[in-house]
């Protein structure tokens, strides 16, 4: 019996396709949203989009389940029960905004620093920071401090950019790619696409990660390194390459500060600083004349070897100090192998492979270019080795220096901004000097004196009050962590509760689950949020929170401002912020309401426009006091950060009379230009994004390439050309050391002198950040699965069927040592606390490391999940084992569990002890359920819209 029915092979796919930008993670891919009967029917990748070129990950395709999620908040909420109970009443937007205004207006009038405004996975930081700046509070940052600030700051200080949104491997030309640490949750699709390209042509992929999952599973070689030792491993590679002379001397002499002369007299007050000319330019020895010359003088040939004596003080090139430092036997492979868990022969072989590919397999592209000194080049030489790293090496207390070390390895190989190496994406490269310095001067009824966050150049730029105490609630840019370029969101609640450095009135958070997976010491943070003083008042008096979903944090707010989902809102992924550029193009993008909300919710940024006007903040009102922006879409089109520069670079109007602006073939200006009322329509017509390609002669060597510098000025990325040298040696760090040694007016407190002196080494050092008590011998890590992101993955009906629970994975050695079997549970203890959780065996894992998926565990009552959900019964957080402070050292001081350079949260320094435990009825600690403000999801789903 054969039955072949007639099929309709060409069903109508949808009524309409609307193209916007994904927000299921921070990758910002272009998506085609197919609509039927006005409802979302299907989501696929946009083939024209520069980020994903048509592909889409599991999260992106599951967006449809995010948009219909039962956990969506429905209306503004006013707390009616005690904090943490989850008891709210729905109120109108008018009432909600009146409450917010009444709370915030007196703060602005009297002391704007009483507001702490911190945003989490915010993709509108240039806007939210602008709002906070106009409010006048110094207390603003997003989540970078507990994510990857070490990577970002080390990259900017070293080479004017880092990985991910700052740059990418030259996937089309690289022949050897090394991936360090956890990286599967950032730059998600581009890395998978890049790996696919490498695999298709058989290029070698090396994974350096204690855990062999995801990208490390497909790596041709896996190095299961001991957590926290990546810096030591990298320095051993540097040692071998230096010893063998396998470094790019031409590149180092021309494009880095290797030839810059350092004051080498330990008795001099400028010891360790650069020799500079009267104009402040660092000096090098010119090999033509044998005399010092400004590094950028036309025709100068910088010498890596020459020394110079001036005024009785000897000066030698940075390169001497670098070579001396890393040629030390302390960094020999045999000296580091045991600590890294990588055999010395393997370290030597990897060094040899890097050298072989960089120098024996060098490539040249026939592209002419002119450098910043005016020298013309007939081709572009490439060193086809490339690297990528993210939180894995970043989230340690030695992370800043480790990230710096990785960049130094790249630079010694001559593999940054060259064919086959690592390439910047506009608006990068951008040296630290081209960024703002931090501003913190709060004054009653006035805006802040400048942008909050930035890059300090020395002690004078620290955010300190006149009495030397921290100006910011998170103590960013203080002696405890001078280069905290992204702030320290993870310290805000703890410091606010302690009144250290001062008390605040209102904590205003956006999209940050600080009462659960985004905080260290979750239980402690919950207690701080609910703690009351002797009068029975909350220690943190007011909490306002905005989120689209019923997250754990919602229960701790006094006022909840419900945000929209990502398909119901305007957004801009701006060149002023964290754009979607590629190495060959500047690009930005929008989100727009492809569907209208079916609830009483508003985009948070539109709410801030409204609230800004109600509070009469400059920048948000017209001269007559009326609201300046109807909503965020209006702001995106009409806001100008400076004349001609707005949130979006595409389809601006030609600036009147200036003739300035990028290329355009349709009468519009690119980059610089006047606001265009039709700008959003133009973006929508173009698929939700804008791309401007970089000319071929500007495609590599960007920091030193005249054609790139000129193009960047035309685009409005710089106001003037900004050529610069890569900073192997970071002079601003030395300035902090000098202060610690007693030089200068601004002095660290005595208890921090030694720490500043030790931490701020201007050439990378390695310190054992995970060293601890022998009672806690095992490293414990988290990763985020590729199919899930942050908190909101495990409420998604489809994604939670992939990762609905998170066992603690143990390597064979520990599994056998403790006699574990399938179905067993373990008690995991750190100096801070204990958890009891289910275990599973993973053989492809560093012998002394355990790990679990991050943020799968949920609190009962949150996210519209049933209380029996495995996320709430078997799922768990490692956060309970990690404290935001280090264990007391007996000195009576609070020491943050953070990198001493940047304040980056040191999540991955955790060490634990493992024991077999009797199976409890659910993971421990278990928390009381919170009442759900949105009820629970349906019992079954069959999501088909249209016919």
């Amino acid at each position, binding site marked *: *019996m054969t039955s072949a029915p007639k099929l309709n*092979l060409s069903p109508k796919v949808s009524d309409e396709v609307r193209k916007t930008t994904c927000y299921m993670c921070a990758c910002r891919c272009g998506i085609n949203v197919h609509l039927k009967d006005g409802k979302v029917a299907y989501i696929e990748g946009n083939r024209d989009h520069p980020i994903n070129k048509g592909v889409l990950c599991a999260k992106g395709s599951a967006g449809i389940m995010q948009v219909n999620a039962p956990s969506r908040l429905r209306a503004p909420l006013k707390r009616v029960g005690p904090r943490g109970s989850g008891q709210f009443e729905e109120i109108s937007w008018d009432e909600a905004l009146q409450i917010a205004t009444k709370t915030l207006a007196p703060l602005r009038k009297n002391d704007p620093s009483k507001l702490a405004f911190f945003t989490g996975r915010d993709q509108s930081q240039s806007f939210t920071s602008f709002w906070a700046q106009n409010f006048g509070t110094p207390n603003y940052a997003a989540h970078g401090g507990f994510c990857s600030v070490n990577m970002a700051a080390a990259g900017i200080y070293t080479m004017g950019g880092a990985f991910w949104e700052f740059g990418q491997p030259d996937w089309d030309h690289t022949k050897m790619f090394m991936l360090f640490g956890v990286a599967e949750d950032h730059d998600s699709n581009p890395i998978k696409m890049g790996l696919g390209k490498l695999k298709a042509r058989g290029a070698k992929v090396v994974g350096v990660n204690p855990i062999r999952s995801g990208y490390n*599973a497909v790596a041709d070689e896996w190095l299961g390194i001991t957590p926290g030792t990546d810096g030591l491993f990298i320095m051993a590679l540097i040692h071998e390459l230096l010893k063998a*002379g396998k470094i790019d001397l031409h590149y180092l002499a021309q494009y880095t500060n290797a030839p810059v002369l350092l004051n080498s007299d330990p008795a001099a007050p400028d010891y360790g600083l650069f020799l500079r000319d009267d104009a402040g330019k660092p000096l090098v020895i010119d090999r033509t004349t044998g005399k010092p010359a400004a590094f950028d003088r036309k025709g100068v040939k910088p010498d890596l070897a020459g020394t110079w004596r001036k005024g009785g003080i000897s000066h030698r090139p940075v390169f001497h100090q670098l070579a001396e430092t890393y040629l030390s036997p302390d960094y020999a492979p045999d000296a580091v192998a045991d600590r890294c868990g990588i055999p010395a022969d393997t370290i030597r072989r990897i060094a*040899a492979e890097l050298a072989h590919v960089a120098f024996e397999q060098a490539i040249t592209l026939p592209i002419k270019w002119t450098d910043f000194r005016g020298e013309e080049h007939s081709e572009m030489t490439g060193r086809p080795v490339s690297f990528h790293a993210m939180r894995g090496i970043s989230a340690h207390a030695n992370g800043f220096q480790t990230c710096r070390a990785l960049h130094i390895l790249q630079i010694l190989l001559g593999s940054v901004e060259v064919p086959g190496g690592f390439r910047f994406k506009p608006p990068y490269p951008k040296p630290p000097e081209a960024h703002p310095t931090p501003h913190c001067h709060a004054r009653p009824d006035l805006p802040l004196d400048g942008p909050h966050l930035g890059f300090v150049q020395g002690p004078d730029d620290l955010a300190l009050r006149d009495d030397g105490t921290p100006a910011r609630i998170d103590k960013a840019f203080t002696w405890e962590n001078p280069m905290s370029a992204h702030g320290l969101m993870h310290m805000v609640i703890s410091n606010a509760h302690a009144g250290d450095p001062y008390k605040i009135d209102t904590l205003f958070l956006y999209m940050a689950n600080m009462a659960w997976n985004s905080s260290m010491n979750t239980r402690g943070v919950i207690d701080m949020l609910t703690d009351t003083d002797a009068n029975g008042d909350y220690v943190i008096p007011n909490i306002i929170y905005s989120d689209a979903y019923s997250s754990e944090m919602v229960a701790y707010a006094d006022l909840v401002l419900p945000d929209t989902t990502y398909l119901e809102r305007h957004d801009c992924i701006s060149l002023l912020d964290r754009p979607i550029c590629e190495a060959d193009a500047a690009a930005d993008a929008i989100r727009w309401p492809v569907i209208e909300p079916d609830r009483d919710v508003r985009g948070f940024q539109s709410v801030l426009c409204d609230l800004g006007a109600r509070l009469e903040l400059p920048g948000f009102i017209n001269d007559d006091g009326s609201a300046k922006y109807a909503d965020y879409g209006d702001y995106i089109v009409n806001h100008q950060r400076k004349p001609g520069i707005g949130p979006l670079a595409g389809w601006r109007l030609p600036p009147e009379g200036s003739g300035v602006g990028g290329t355009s073939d349709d009468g519009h200006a690119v980059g610089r230009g006047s606001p265009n009322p039709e700008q959003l329509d133009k973006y929508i017509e173009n698929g939700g994004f804008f791309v401007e390609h970089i000319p071929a002669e500007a495609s590599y060597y960007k920091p030193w390439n005249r054609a790139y510098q000129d193009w960047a000025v035309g685009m409005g990325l710089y106001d003037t050309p900004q050529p610069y040298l890569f900073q192997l040696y970071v002079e601003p760090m030395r300035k902090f050391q000098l202060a610690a040694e007693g030089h200068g007016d601004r002095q660290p407190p005595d208890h921090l002198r030694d720490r500043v002196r030790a931490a701020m080494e201007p050439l990378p050092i390695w310190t054992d950040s995970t060293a601890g008590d022998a009672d806690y011998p095992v490293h414990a890590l988290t990763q985020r699965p590729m199919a899930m992101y942050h908190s909101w993955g495990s409420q998604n009906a489809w994604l939670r069927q992939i990762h609905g629970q998170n066992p603690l994975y143990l390597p064979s050695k520990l599994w056998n040592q403790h006699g574990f079997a399938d179905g067993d549970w373990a008690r995991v203890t750190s100096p801070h606390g204990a958890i009891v959780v289910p275990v599973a065996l993973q*053989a492809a894992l560093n012998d002394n490391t355990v790990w679990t998926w991050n943020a799968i565990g949920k609190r009962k009552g949150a996210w519209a999940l049933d209380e029996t959900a495995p996320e709430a019964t078997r799922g768990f957080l490692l956060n309970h084992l990690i404290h935001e402070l280090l264990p007391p050292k007996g000195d009576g001081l609070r020491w943050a569990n953070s990198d001493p350079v940047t304040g980056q949260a040191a999540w991955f320094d955790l060490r634990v002890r493992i024991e077999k435990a009797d199976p409890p009825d659910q993971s421990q600690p278990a928390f009381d359920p919170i009442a759900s403000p949105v009820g629970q999801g349906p019992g079954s789903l069959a999501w088909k819209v249209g016919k």
Partner: protein
Amino acid sequence: MTDLPDKTDRKLGLVIDLDTCVGCHACVISCKGWNTENYGVPLSDQDPYGGTPSGTFLNRVHSFEVQPDQGAAQTVHFPKSCLHCDDAPCVTVCPTGASYKRAEDGIVLVNEDACIGCGLCAWACPYGARELDRAAGVMKKCTLCVDRIYNENLPQEDRLPACVRTCPAGARHFGDLGDPDSAVSQLVADRGGMDLMPELGTRPVNKYLPPRPKDTGGEIDILAPLLAPVAEEPKGFLGWLDKTLERL
């Protein structure tokens, strides 16, 4: 019972590269999305926000660990969906003729109107590639996106199975494995593409490209000269530097 065609004009199928699959599940969810909205009844989910969520999926990714005799354990991500076998036991077992293999392209489908939900085909499939939808009571399986690959409402470049179109790493390939000159057949020839469990005699159309050898390292002896020290002491290094710079 149901007959299989003697031969098919083409053998459309997938080639899945296990050396490249990073296990991201993009294909799983893209498939779920397309096939919830298209071909037959939607892929339902039971208890989607509760204690025992389960749903119908036509494509799933399994992860395995492999412990070689020497060296580190390895992780393999293994996406699995219907392999559109030439000798498909799920078809011949079907009591109603609902399961069938198309003579024109070899795609194995279920005619949902004729399916009684008896589940015999799922028992017969040695790969576990069929799932009975609990809401609708009909058997669901990979259709190779038969409603995409010929769909004149889609641009030519999108006439691909949803899983292939979405795969970020490019680990999934679609084409005619009956044509030895097709790109997919060439890929199978070049990379040693394999049948899944060939001993069962199902003659699957889909092929898997095996992982390349891992952790083989390089030969240190060959690369060793690259690391010959230029000098034994740092001072010697700087002397060497002087000489090298003179040649620049």
